[in-house]
């Protein structure tokens, strides 16, 4: 069943500031923040009120549509603030951490248990949040049965944390998680790996696929499309490789240990490297020591530079990211930027842009748009970086004019916003592709469900 996946369409964007393979323990964060918006489309029902004390792994809120789906605290401490937005929407739950961490004991799990028990355990322990589904790219519905589960063990995005490095030594946890997940589907757990050295390469109860080629070869969307694309009425689940460690540890020890090794990378960072930290922690615990200038003009991103979320320097690591990228802001004008030859930026054309001459050069890119927003004009350039069997411009336009039938016919069930990150990067019309796809998916979720 294992299949080698080799893609040609794509683009490797090489950036300055790749993390050096050394791990430091991050300063222990005093405050943690969990943002319900990380769990797209979930409406939270708050359990832990302001002032309450929680243990690590204790429920903070549950899914309004499914009471059994819990979302838990990464640390033990006191709920100091529940930040609310318009219409009393919960924006963030802020926790002040204890000096001594205490954990809820979910109990050692019997890995031979059946699907129902496994599911119930993951839902109750807060690990369900790590399981996402397609269609719609949201937290998986608990009553759905996936035709298969997909995990990308190879990160090809610019500056991405090297999974072979961050997961090294975690084979036992990975194995436990994969074994449990394999109970939940009949189609198997499919894992993509970049090399046979990957800690994910020799797992039982999984089907591994060697992937190679330029980004997005490591995207889970590419893996799904090449192995078993989502058809109408079907569901697949995806889990980030680094989250398997948390799931695995919970199953083996009963402890929800939110620890994660993340990369701090980007050209603004003095010494890019890896940190051992916890999800939801303050990024300021990592970014200043041998990192960025305090009064610098930088963009902080929880996630990679193509699809991560912008955060402020006093912000928090989000639930699914294993990288903090810091690149310079580009909020300056550039004289004759539209017609002079360009040597210091990446492009997939050769319109007086010369990145094709130096495919291995590392670039120091900033956040400038390099142009203004326009209607779709050029054709054929998205296809050069888009390996899925889908017409990218046509599906984007279908999302813009909200034709549900057409979106469905063109393959909307198969995609997630991150699949359109590269087309957005190369777009000469500077259209916000990922935003368009997200809005399209939300519309479908609302109308079709």
């Amino acid at each position, binding site marked *: 069943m294992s299949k080698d996946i080799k893609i040609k369409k794509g683009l490797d*964007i090489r950036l300055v500031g790749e993390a050096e393979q050394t791990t430091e323990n991050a300063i222990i964060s005093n405050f943690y923040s969990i943002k319900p918006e990380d769990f797209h489309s979930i409406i939270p029902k708050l359990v832990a009120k302001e002032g309450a004390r929680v243990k690590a792994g204790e429920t903070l809120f549950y899914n309004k549509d499914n009471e059994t789906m819990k979302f838990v605290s990464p640390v033990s401490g006191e709920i100091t603030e529940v930040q609310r937005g318009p219409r009393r929407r919960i924006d963030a739950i802020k926790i002040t951490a204890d000096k001594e961490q205490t954990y809820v004991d979910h109990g050692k799990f019997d890995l031979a248990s059946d699907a129902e028990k496994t599911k119930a355990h993951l839902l109750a322990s807060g690990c369900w949040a790590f399981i996402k589904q397609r269609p719609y790219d949201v937290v998986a519905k608990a009553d759905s049965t996936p035709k298969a589960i997909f995990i990308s063990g190879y990160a090809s995005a*610019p500056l991405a944390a090297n999974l072979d490095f961050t997961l090294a030594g975690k084979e036992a946890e990975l194995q436990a998680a994969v074994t449990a997940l394999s109970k939940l589907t009949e189609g198997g757990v499919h894992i993509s790996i970049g090399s046979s050295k990957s800690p994910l390469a020799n797992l039982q109860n999984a089907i591994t696929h060697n992937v190679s080629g330029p980004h997005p070869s490591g995207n889970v969307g590419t893996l799904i499309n090449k192995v078993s*694309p989502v*058809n*109408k*009425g*079907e569901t697949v689940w995806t889990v980030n490789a680094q989250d398997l460690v948390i799931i695995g540890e919970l199953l083996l020890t009963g402890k929800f240990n939110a620890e994660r090794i993340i990369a701090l990378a980007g050209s603004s960072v003095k010494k890019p490297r890896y940190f051992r930290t916890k999800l939801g922690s303050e990024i300021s615990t990592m970014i200043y020591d041998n990192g960025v200038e305090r009064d610098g003009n930088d*963009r902080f991103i929880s996630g990679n*530079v*193509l699809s991560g979320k*912008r955060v402020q320097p006093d912000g928090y690591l989000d639930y699914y990211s294993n990288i903090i990228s810091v*690149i310079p802001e580009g*909020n*300056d*004008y550039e*004289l004759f*930027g*539209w*017609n002079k030859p360009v040597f210091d*930026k*990446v*492009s*997939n*054309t*050769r*319109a*007086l842009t010369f*990145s094709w001459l130096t495919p291995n050069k590392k670039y120091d*890119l900033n*956040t*400038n*748009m*390099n*142009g*203004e*927003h*326009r*209607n*779709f*004009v*050029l*054709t*054929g*350039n998205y*296809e050069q970086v888009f390996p899925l069997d889908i*017409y990218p*411009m*046509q599906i984007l336009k279908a999302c813009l004019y909200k034709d549900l039938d057409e979106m469905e016919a*063109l*393959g909307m069930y198969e995609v997630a916003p991150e699949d359109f*990150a590269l087309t*957005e*990067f*190369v*777009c*000469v*019309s*500077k259209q916000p*592709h*990922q935003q368009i796809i997200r809005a399209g998916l939300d519309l479908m979720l609302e109308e079709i469900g």
Partner: protein
Amino acid sequence: MGLKQNLHSLREKYKGTKMAPAFNALHTFLYTPNDTAHGGTHIKAADDLKRTMNTVIMALIPCLIFGMFNAGYQHYVAAGEIEAVTSGFFSSEFWTLQNFSLGFWKILPILLVSYGVGLGVEFLFAVIKGHEVEEGYLVTGMLVPLIVPIDIPLWMLVVAVVFGVVIGKEVFGGTGMNILNPALTIRAFLFFAYPTWMSGDKVWVEGAVERTREIANGSTADAISGETILGSLAQSHGVDYSVMDMFFGFIPGSIGETSTLLILLGGLFLIFTKIGSWRIMLSSVIGALVMGYIFNLVVAAGWITDTSKFYGLMSTEFWHHLLIGGMAFGIVYMATDPVTASQTNKGKWIYGFLIGFISIMIRVFNPAYPEGVMLAILLMNVFAPTIDHYVVQGNVKRRLKRAKLKTA
């Protein structure tokens, strides 16, 4: 620093006002804006639409400069003042200051009118409708002077440009939304509104029209005539030009369309920079050759004899069709317009092939107007969405089939 700051504060001042698009259009010519990416990719590729359009203009400049020399050259040769070229592309008879200055002073006004009027209309619409000034006209404004006869009266050009920009583009919502290629819409308008100025043997050489009028008024000077090769062939006259003349472009015709050599180089540049679609260019050439070859076979089979009015063009060797008329220019610069062409890669093959094929067909069967490439491209512009529809349906059907297999 001062200029940058001043312009920045002006930009802030105009923000949200009616004049913002007009100001931004001028401002962004000088400076790429300081806008940063939000809520998507945090980095962006170096290209924007301005750079893309600028690349096409760069590919057109050699044709424009050659057109200036050729305008002078055709005039002086027809007037009998200089000898025809004899020694290849760099012949000294051709590249003279005299030739250039006549062409320059004749073509500059056409260029200025094209850009002035076209951009004026664009700015007006941008201000009224509150969208940014789109760069599409930068290319259209350059194409228009290259595809009109040298003696075109400027007022006609003004009328045509206004028509082309408004009806061809703005009513659909601007660049990216139009169905027909705006430059060809302008040319088609000229052709059908003022046919005597767009065909025949008087308009292609500077001064021919004027001279004819003088003769009619009793002057004894010799008439200047400069028929295009297509015109001669359509009337089954002989052609005095060698294949090399046609390839290098030392022939009468629209201002920028004559030099197949430079168009070829421009096309290669567009393909190399990945701005122009090689699929469309290649398939158009194939389409034209196939149709030309079929006609050659018809002649060879003896179904058409030299008494037929189609004989002249049908018996033209099939590959010569690429060298004469606007064929090459149309294929490289007009058929490849991404907005009006097919948008799918498979569709581009079909679209291009049909353009080449139909161009030659119109050329041969319509002696009244022997240049078919303009009409062929406009026709295929209309059909491009249909072609794309069927190509995309292929993908959709594959998806449905996959779903059926699973459930079966």
